[in-house]
C-alpha cells in the first residue's frame, strides 16, 4: 500500500494512468445501471446529436450511444483480460518448464512454440471464428485468441529463465542451501514480475486489436456490444460519411484512452519494481 502511495506521489505517469483506468472501470460498471438493454434497438429517435438527455447522441439504430459504450467497454475488457489470462498462463507454464527442466522437454516444447510462431495467425483466427461463428461467446473467443498467442511470450519467458539461471545470485542462493522451489519463488519470480506486467499489456492490446479486426470483418457475435462491434455497426450505417461522428468517435477514443492508461501503468510499475541496475545485471529484457 505504501508503494502505491509513493507511486501516486512521485510518478506522474502512474497518476495519469491510474486515473484513466479508474475512469474506464467506472464506465464499465455503469453498464449495470443502464436504462436500456444492450440488445435493445429502435427505442429512441435516430441520429440525434449529443444533448443533455443523450450525452453522446443516438445511433442510426436508435440506441443511446453513451450507455451502449459502457456495455462495449465492459465486454471488450472482459474478452481482452480473459484472453491474456489464458494465453499467459500457458506461456508462463511452458516457458518455465522448458527453461528449468531443459533437455528433451525443452527441445519438444521449443519446437512446438516455434511451429506456432510460423503459423499465419490472422487467417487461422478468421477461419476458426468463421466456422464457429454461431457459438462464439466471450469464453470461446478468449480461448481462440489465447490458442494463437502463447508461443512468442513462452519463448521470451524461457530465455529470461535461462539468463536468470546463469546469474551469480542463483549460484549463491543454491550454495547457501535454498531449495529449487525457493530459488524459483524467492529469487527469480521477483525479476520476472515487471516483465510479466509489460507482457500482459502487450497481450491485452493484441487481443483487443484482434477482437476489433474480427468484428470489423463481421466475424464475431455482432449482437453483443463490444468496441469492435460498435465500430462495425457505425461503419455499416456509414457513420463517417453521414457525419454522425458521435457514433464512430466514442468507441475509437475509448479504445485509445484505455490502451494509453494501461500502457502508462505498465511503464511506471515496471520502472518502480525494477531499478535499472537490476535490469542491466540480467542483460536487458529482450535477450532472445
Amino acid at each position, binding site marked *: 500500500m505504501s508503494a502505491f502511495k509513493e507511486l501516486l506521489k512521485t510518478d506522474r505517469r502512474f497518476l495519469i494512468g491510474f486515473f484513466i483506468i479508474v475512469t474506464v472501470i467506472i464506465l464499465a460498471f455503469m453498464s449495470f445501471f443502464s436504462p436500456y438493454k444492450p440488445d435493445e434497438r429502435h427505442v429512441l429517435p435516430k441520429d440525434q446529436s449529443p444533448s443533455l438527455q443523450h450525452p453522446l447522441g443516438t445511433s442510426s439504430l436508435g440506441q443511446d450511444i453513451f450507455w451502449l459504450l459502457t456495455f462495449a467497454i465492459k465486454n471488450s475488457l472482459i474478452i481482452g483480460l480473459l484472453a491474456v489470462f489464458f494465453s499467459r498462463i500457458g506461456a508462463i507454464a511452458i516457458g518455465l518448464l522448458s527453461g528449468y527442466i531443459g533437455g528433451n522437454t525443452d527441445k519438444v516444447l521449443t*519446437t512446438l512454440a516455434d*511451429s506456432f510462431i510460423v503459423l*499465419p495467425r490472422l487467417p487461422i483466427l478468421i477461419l476458426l471464428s*468463421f466456422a464457429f461463428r454461431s457459438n462464439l461467446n466471450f469464453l470461446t473467443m478468449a480461448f481462440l485468441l489465447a490458442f494463437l498467442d502463447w508461443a512468442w511470450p513462452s519463448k521470451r519467458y524461457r530465455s529470461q529463465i535461462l539468463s536468470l539461471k546463469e546469474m551469480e545470485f542463483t549460484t549463491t542462493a543454491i550454495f547457501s542451501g535454498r531449495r529449487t522451489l525457493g530459488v524459483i519463488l524467492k529469487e527469480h519470480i521477483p525479476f520476472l514480475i515487471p516483465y510479466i506486467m509489460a507482457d500482459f499489456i502487450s497481450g491485452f492490446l493484441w487481443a483487443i486489436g484482434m477482437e476489433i479486426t474480427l468484428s470489423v*470483418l463481421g466475424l464475431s457475435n455482432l449482437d453483443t456490444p463490444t468496441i469492435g462491434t460498435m465500430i462495425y455497426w457505425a461503419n455499416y450505417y456509414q457513420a463517417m460519411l453521414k457525419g454522425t461522428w458521435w457514433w464512430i468517435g466514442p468507441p475509437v477514443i475509448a479504445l485509445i484512452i484505455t490502451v494509453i492508461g494501461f500502457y502508462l501503468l505498465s511503464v511506471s510499475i515496471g520502472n518502480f519494481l525494477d531499478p535499472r541496475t537490476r535490469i542491466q545485471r540480467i542483460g536487458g529484457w529482450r535477450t532472445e
Partner: protein
Amino acid sequence: MENLLKYIIPRIFQCMIVIFVGVTIVFIVPRLTPMDPVQSIISRVTALVDTDPRAVEKLVETLTDLYGLRGSLLEQYLRFWKHLLSGDLGPSLTMFPASVVDIIKISLPWTIGLMTISTIIAWLLGIILGTLAGYFSNKRWSQILGTVVMCIYPIPYYIIALILVLLFAYLLPIFPLMGGASIGLKPSFSWSFITSLLKHGFLPAISLVIGTIGWIFMSQRALISRLVASDFIVFAETASLPRKKILSYLIRNSMLPQITDLALSLGGIFSGAIITEQVFSYPGIGVVLYSAILQGDFNLMMGISIFSIIGIATAALVLDLIYPLLDPRIRYK
C-alpha cells in the same frame, strides 16, 4: 569449418521440423471445423436448377475426389503430403479449374511489392526516430513525439485506413479509391503503368507505415533509453566523442532484436495484409485468402498458409545463420 557445420545443420533440420508441424496444424484446423466445401458447392448448384439426385451423388463423389477429401483423415493427410512434395497444391475449390499455384502467382507480386516497401520504410523511420527520441529523451520535441506516437499506436488499423480513404480519396480526391493500377493498363515498365502503380499504392502503403511504426518506435526508444545508462555510453560521453559516433554505437547495439522483428515481419508478408487489401480493394493475396476462408476453399487456404509458414520459418533460419555475422559477441558454438 566443422564448428560451422555443427551450428548450421541442426538449425536447418529444426527449421524443417517446424515447417512440418506448422503445415500439419494448417492441414488439421480447417478439417476440424464443421465447414463442408463439397456440400456448399452442391447447395449452390442445386439451388438454381432441379437436378437428378443420382447426378448429385455422382457430383459429390467427383468433387470429394478432386479436392482430396476422400478417405480417413490419415489417408487424406498422406495424399496431401505426396502432392505437396511434388509441388502440386491442387485446384482451387471456388475458382475451379484455376490451380492454387496459378492464383497465388497472380496475386502474390502485388502484396510483396506493397508490403516489402512499406515494412522497410516503417522500420527505418521507426528506428531513426526511436533512437533520436531515446537519446534526447529530455528534449521537448522528443516528449511531444512520444505522446503523439503513443496516441496513434492503439488506433485500430482499420480506422487508420478508413480515415485515409475518407480524406484523400473521397473528400480530396487526390488518390484513386481502389485497385492496384488503373483498369486496362497492362503490367509493363512503361511510365504510365509505373505512375499509376505508385498512385494506387500510396494510400495503402502509408496506412501500413502508420499502423506498424508505433511499435517499432516505442521498442527502439525503450532499448535506447536502457543503453544510454550503460557504462560504455557513459564513457563515450565523458570522453566527449562526437554525437554521430555515439548514436552509431547506440544503433549498432540495439540492432539485434530489431532485425529479428524486421525479418519475421518480412517473412510474414506471404499471408498478405487482409484488412488493408480489403479496405483499398488491392488485388493482393490477402483478399484472395479472405474470400477463400469465407467460401471454404480449403486448398487455396492451405496453399497460401503454406507459403506463409515457409516464408517465416526461412526468415527465422536465415536470422539464426547471420546472427554471428551481425553480432561479434555471438559466435558459432
